[in-house]
């Protein structure tokens, strides 16, 4: 995976996470427990992806 792709994916995860935090809070206010778990799950997975992609980027960048 190239460095450009890494950048793209990381920026994308930020966008996704901002949206998910917003949705999670809204679901929380609406007491929609299932949705909270889904949104929060997506957010955590996407944060994890960001981390993995970062490691990959580091490999290429500091080779």
């Amino acid at each position, binding site marked *: 995976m190239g460095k450009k792709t890494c*950048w793209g994916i990381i920026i994308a995860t930020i966008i996704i996470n901002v949206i*998910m935090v917003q949705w999670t809070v809204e679901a929380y206010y*609406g007491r929609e427990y299932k949705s909270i778990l889904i949104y929060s799950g997506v957010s955590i997975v996407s944060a994890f992806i960001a981390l993995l992609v970062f490691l990959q*980027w580091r490999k290429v960048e500091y080779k």
Partner: protein
Amino acid sequence: MTCKKKLARNQKDTNDDMINLVDNLNQEDDLKYNRRAFLKTAVGTSVALGVATIPFSVKAMLGIAEKNYERVEIAKLADLPQGDSVTFYYPTDKDPALLIHTVNGDLKAYNSACTHLMCPVFYEKTQDVLLCPCHAGYFDVNNGHPKAGPPQRELPLIEIEVDKGIVYAVGRQYRHG
């Protein structure tokens, strides 16, 4: 070109500004604020946002999910003429609620803490709306949805039941059509 300044920069070991241009570059800043640092911050942001949702899911899993609702008497229908409303607490003593007999003769009940900043909402019978005086928030009395002003979410709906002239609260819904 005989100005002294101009000449100065042609001299050996001069301190002329035009020669020492690199002085405005700060090597430390260059190492701190660069593309790599930016990407690291971006990853940090993404992870922080992801982690920020964890408390919500933990709470959801611990089941702040509401228990079964009790059936609680609110008021006698005879004591509540059209256009009147009465305050009660449901499902706990900490949840103020409003039972409204609208000018059209419908019975409606909502938790009365405004969904903006929790001010108490009251029934304004001349306009047939629920009004929050704090920041002029308006809610539709027929479905509890915000109509105007800062509130964005609907008022929690209290399900009611009328039995032998007595109004009971039997449940609550947070999201409702």
